[in-house]
């Protein structure tokens, strides 16, 4: 069921203007190459979903392709703020950004409910915080056994889920090891899914802490070596920490950012 196709074809087929697109990868295996391709194809009015909208979100927000962001932490990890994200929230540049903001636990459980075929998830969260009430997707629910009040969040079923993985086999099954984040939940919850991979192998090896995702859950696999750079792929390459530090300067200025995107994303040949 998982077809091995070029990245450009996969993005053109799976991502439409106005789509709700989840791009996941928790520090590890962030699908940068797929985001770059969305920019090259200028697919806009997206609802972007990402627990930690970091540089990859700064790219998409800064070029004006995102109308709405569902997220829980928007920063440059270990470095500081995300200037394009801040500029769009504070100044509405290049366009205003509608926010649906959660804690990690809240957004994670939106995916979990989506993966589990439930309309909502229950969690102990948000009690006493100002997050409660900033948008309608945090409600309360009463335990039918103890009478306790808990929080409820609605299931999230993105139109497209995109993740990067280390390997696919020839049937299109996918293997991820190291930090696996919410990747499995995103694939299970999404209506369509794309996995970019470092390489295709004949057989998977044994890895503690690995997950494998069967081909019948994946619509397209695209081979994109280095597709998670500047983040990292355990067993393949390290995180480009220098680039994360440099990004603080690159993204601080609107024109500088746009010039960088033109140079490094738009002019780059298709993967």
């Amino acid at each position, binding site marked *: 069921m998982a077809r091995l196709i070029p990245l450009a074809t996969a993005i053109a087929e799976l991502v439409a203007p106005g789509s709700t697109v989840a791009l996941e990868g*928790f*520090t*590890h295996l962030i699908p940068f190459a797929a985001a770059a391709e969305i920019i090259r194809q200028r697919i806009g009015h997206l609802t972007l979903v990402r*627990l*930690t909208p970091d540089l990859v979100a700064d790219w998409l927000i800064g070029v004006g392709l995102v109308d709405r962001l569902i*997220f*829980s*932490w*928007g*920063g440059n*990890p*270990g*470095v500081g*703020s*995300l200037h394009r*994200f*801040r500029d769009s*929230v*504070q100044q509405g540049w290049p366009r205003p950004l509608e926010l649906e*903001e*959660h*804690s*990690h*636990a809240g957004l*994670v*459980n939106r*995916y*979990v409910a989506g993966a589990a075929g439930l309309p909502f998830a229950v*969690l*102990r*969260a*948000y*009690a*006493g*915080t*100002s*997050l409660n009430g*900033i948008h309608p997707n945090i409600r309360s629910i009463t335990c039918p056994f103890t009478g*306790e*009040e808990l929080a409820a969040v609605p299931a999230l079923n993105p139109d497209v889920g995109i993740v990067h993985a280390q390997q696919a086999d020839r049937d299109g099954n996918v293997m991820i090891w*190291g*930090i*696996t*984040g*919410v990747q*499995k*939940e995103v694939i299970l919850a999404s209506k369509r899914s794309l996995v970019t991979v470092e390489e295709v192998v004949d057989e998977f090896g044994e890895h*503690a*802490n690995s*997950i494998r995702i069967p081909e019948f859950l994946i619509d397209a696999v695209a081979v994109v070596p280095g597709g998670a750079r500047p983040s*990292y792929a*355990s067993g393949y390459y*390290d*995180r480009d*920490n220098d680039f*994360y530090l440099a990004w603080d300067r690159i993204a601080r200025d609107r024109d500088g950012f746009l010039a960088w995107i033109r140079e490094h994303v738009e002019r780059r040949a298709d993967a």
Partner: protein
Amino acid sequence: MPEFSAREMMIIAAARALRDEHNCFVGIGVPSVAANLARRLYNPSLMLIYESGCIGAKPTRLPLSIGDSELSDTSMTVVSVPEIFNYWLQGGKVDVGFLGAAQIDRYGNLNSTVIGDYDHPTVRLPGAGGAPDIAAFAKEVFVVLDQSVRSFVPELGFVTSVGHFAHGRTRHEWGLPGGGPTQVITNLGILVPNEGELELRWIHPSVELKDVRQHTGWDLKISPDLACTSEPEEWELKELRRLEER
């Protein structure tokens, strides 16, 4: 007496606080330095837990993010992010959570979301991440941040993480199972809650009381048992500097 910076004092005070703990949920920055220092100096069996799912990480160098390969490669196990939040944090398995923030109030509530109006913020901060969940569920919470009138404010515009009393109710009334902040460790001293309100319990060496008062945005209570933090030992400083060099 060795020379040391206020930042070094803060980190060493935070690390010392982990002496007798089983496990610690670690955020990046000062908490990560402190937790790794504690594992080296005082508590080799301290289990480090990161929100990226890494449990029992034993990094040899300090990670830049909570998801570096240094963490997953050295962990006893790596679990999914849903699992770390649902089973480990919400499930009540975390002894100490470490939090930083942009702002804190006298009840130990933290703001890491926005300065100013939520819809039209003066400064948009990164947001909640795992902080509200750590604040809710860890058996105790250590807060680490620099003390100033900009960060120690009389009232928060936005409560990201609940301390001992927020929006008119105690944390118990909000149904939060964890114990909340038990220590707020700063560059000037250590505050502990007394019936929910932070008071200065320890003051760092060569800091004067009026400095602490000047850098607090409210009328700070001083504990009747106020004492001076014992200053960093040579061997503590040496290991800290070695760790940050790598």
